[in-house]
């Protein structure tokens, strides 16, 4: 297993991200958002934090439900990518072609290329990552090149367990900088993060931003395929567990489902979306799912 970014050369990331992006172009692609605008786009359930100006009183009288009106507008949407580059993202497992950070970078690059092709500005922030340099929000091919350059040198470093401020350093800036209508895509394994991380993510969604949290897991993390007795050492923190996998597998999978359910519930409450992708999945399908979730 390697904890550094394993891409090899920038051309590879560039080519692969382009291929992924082109695969996504084959499907529907619209840079659109619902919210305040000119053309009515339908109703949706009211959630706390929605602008009361768009509450449809008639619909309330007719259906007895709180619905808000949505409008479609053609506008440029800033894409802010947040890539988790903490130590746990350096895990690849036995059945994945790349580390989680590698796959997350590929997905981020592909999404950035799609955004750049649509004329949307892109920005990049990291969770952890040590010396990885964030990319400020900007548009054009140069921005895409900077983003690729940053992803190239990113290494899986940092311990969210020992450094609880890591999350605040990344999201604090993002919350202040992301404007209304921005799309925030978080690519992380969501492991070893503080318990209130989901609230941080959902808080961003409540301020009119579109937030998609993508949990990137290795196949080994999804089904715990080990046999017999193993000693499992976490990459962050000091957790070392000796267990019999046959005994612990069901409990582990339940805990993993519980973690996903926690994020999904918390994010859905603010209109954010939660996805899980496997590093063994087709990246085109993964990007397509992410793009679909943004809509």
């Amino acid at each position, binding site marked *: 297993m390697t904890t550094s970014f394993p891409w090899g050369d920038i051309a590879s990331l560039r080519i692969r991200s382009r291929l992924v992006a082109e695969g996504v172009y084959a499907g529907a692609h619209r840079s659109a958002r619902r919210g305040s605008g000119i053309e009515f786009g339908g109703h949706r359930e009211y959630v706390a934090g929605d602008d009361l100006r768009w509450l449809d009183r008639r619909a309330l009288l007719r259906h007895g439900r709180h619905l808000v009106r949505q409008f479609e507008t053609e506008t440029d949407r800033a894409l802010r990518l947040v890539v988790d580059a903490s130590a746990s993202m350096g895990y690849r497992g036995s059945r994945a072609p790349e580390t989680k950070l590698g796959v997350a970078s590929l997905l981020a690059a592909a999404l950035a290329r799609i955004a750049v092709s649509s004329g949307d500005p892109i920005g990049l922030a990291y969770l952890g990552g040590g010396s990885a340099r964030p990319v400020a929000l900007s548009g054009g091919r140069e921005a895409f090149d900077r983003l690729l350059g940053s992803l190239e040198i990113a290494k899986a470093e940092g311990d969210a367990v020992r450094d609880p401020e890591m999350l605040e350093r990344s999201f604090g800036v993002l919350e202040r900088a992301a404007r209304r209508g921005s799309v925030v895509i978080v690519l992380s394994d969501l492991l070893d993060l503080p318990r209130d991380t989901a609230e941080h993510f959902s808080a961003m969604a409540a301020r009119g931003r579109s937030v998609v949290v993508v949990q990137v897991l290795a196949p080994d993390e999804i089904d715990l395929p080990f046999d017999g*007795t193993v000693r499992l050492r976490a990459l962050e923190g000091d957790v070392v567990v000796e267990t019999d996998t046959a005994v612990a597998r069901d409990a582990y999978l339940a805990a993993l489902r519980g973690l996903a359910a926690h994020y999904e519930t918390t994010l859905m409450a603010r209109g954010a979306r939660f996805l899980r992708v496997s590093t063994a999945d087709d990246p085109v399908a993964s990007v397509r799912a992410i793009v679909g979730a943004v809509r």
Partner: protein
Amino acid sequence: MSFVTIFALGIAAFIALPILAHRLRRRRAEERAFPAAALVPPAPPRARRRAKLEDRALFGVRALAIAALALLGASPLVRCTRLSLSRSSGASMAVAIVIDDSMSMRAKAGNQTRFARAKAAASELLAGTRDGDAVGVVLAGSPPRVALAPTTELDAVSSIISSTTESDRATDLDGAIHLAETLLAALPQVDKRVVVLSDLADGKPDAPALGENAVVPIWAPLAEIRDTKETDCAITSADDTGGRVIVRLACGKDVSASGRRVEVRAGERVVGSGTATATTTTDLSVDVTGVTPGEALTAHLLGGDAIATDDVAPVLVSQSGAIGVVAEAADETAVTGGPPVVEQAFAALRSDLATRPLPAVPDQPGDFHGFFGLVVDDPPGFTPEQRRALSQYLEGGGVMLVALGPRASAAPLGATLQPLLDHATTWSEAKSKGAKPDADAVLLGEATRSLVDLGAAKRTTLSPADVGSVENLVAWSDGAPLVARRVIGRGEAWIVTLPFALDASDLPLRPAFIALLDAFVATTHTHAAPRRADVGATWTLPSGASAAKGPSGAIDLVREGGRAKLSPPVVGAYHVTIDGKDELRVAAPIARETDLRPRALKSQEASSHLGATQAQVDISPYVAVALLLLLFAELALRLRAGQSPGEKMIG
């Protein structure tokens, strides 16, 4: 312990291997990096669970198997604390085991008696013998006895050893060893030895060291039963003299019964008591009161000592007895001016029996009451009444000494010498002037030599028919009987072929005469009833004896030569049924047996070249069987573990 032994036993250290294997097995879990480790619950690994299940059984079996393996490797060299004979070569050996069953062996040695330790040692020795070894057993209690002649049937030896019991006999180690050597002499084995399992306390601590002149090597192990500081006192006799019991005590060397209390009891009731004085051996007079006539009494020495059985003795009622003397005093008084010479001789003996002159041989059986013996000097035959009375007296155990002279040979009509002799005697010139110088004569011993030049002009000659019916104790130089004995019923008659009158011969002036009277008195004592004798001594009973009962129950009488014999093994009262009448006899302890000091032992006889208390014992067969069983046990455990699915075990 040699290097090989240490190395073999070192294998036992490999017991740590199963422990190490189990621990390694538990630590075999591979460590993996796994980001989601925090979500994985810890669970007891299956291997650990299995290890726990198997710890007590499988691990125990494996550890024992390794230990057994180590023992197996070292077993020919493993030493056990048991008695065993050293075997200088592979040849078979002949062993005579002398087991001391004397009274001193009743003393304690640790938590068991000395005898029990000797018996156990004999069994240990027997366990170390091999096929082809000949083993005999000799008992050293006096008299020494062959319990089993040497035999290669070791099961028989084992049976004899286990059936051997304690006794109160005296110790005769010299005799026992001699007997053992005799038993081994005829055996073909080259390697012979006598093993003496004894405390060596034979009452002769100052005698020459044991094994001085031994022909066969003697090994006397069991030093532990000779090192004890036990002391002992015993009641050797207790006689009721009419309201007063005389208790005789005996103690070991430098041991005193001073201050110890003596009680006389009638059953559980104390009828008299006293306290012993400072003297080592003493007669203690105890006044008794409240005793009904015929009531059995026992004397008890309180205070406790090494041997308890000799602290109790039955009290015998002393019977006053006398020796009746029938002698024609007329001539004697003319010569000596006093009582007949035979009476004066009895007085010189200072016997405890009084002499009572009688005018004639009693002609009524009742007139013999109180007479332990009867001495008749040259009787002129016996009348029919006298003969009938004499027959009853002798048949009942009386002892008679008759001197035959001219009057006996000239018995009047109707008077004969029956029941002593069936035919008449003759008083004639002596063909020889003295007795045969037979120093081995049992009766008089060395004193017989004083009769060699006996100055007798005439002597009494028995008819040839009577000579054949008597036992010749002392003979004239021509072989004719000078002193003869004839057993009549339970009694006996001693016949002297010279009268006691000094004008007939100077026999009364010879030392042999006193020796003759002394032997006669001793014989009257042995025929007097009730009798007290040393324990272990053989009692010769009349043919009418039918049963005997001792302290430990009924005893079988041994028939020999028409007479019954009994050898009491323990001290106490014995009731013998003779002609339908119950007769009380007492086996008394022997004073010297209270001396528990061991006799010296020839130094080389105690050395270990003949045997050792820590001998090499081959335990390989037992260990091999144990190892086989352990392997089966492990196999069973593994099969059992294989039949149990892992998931079920975990669940």
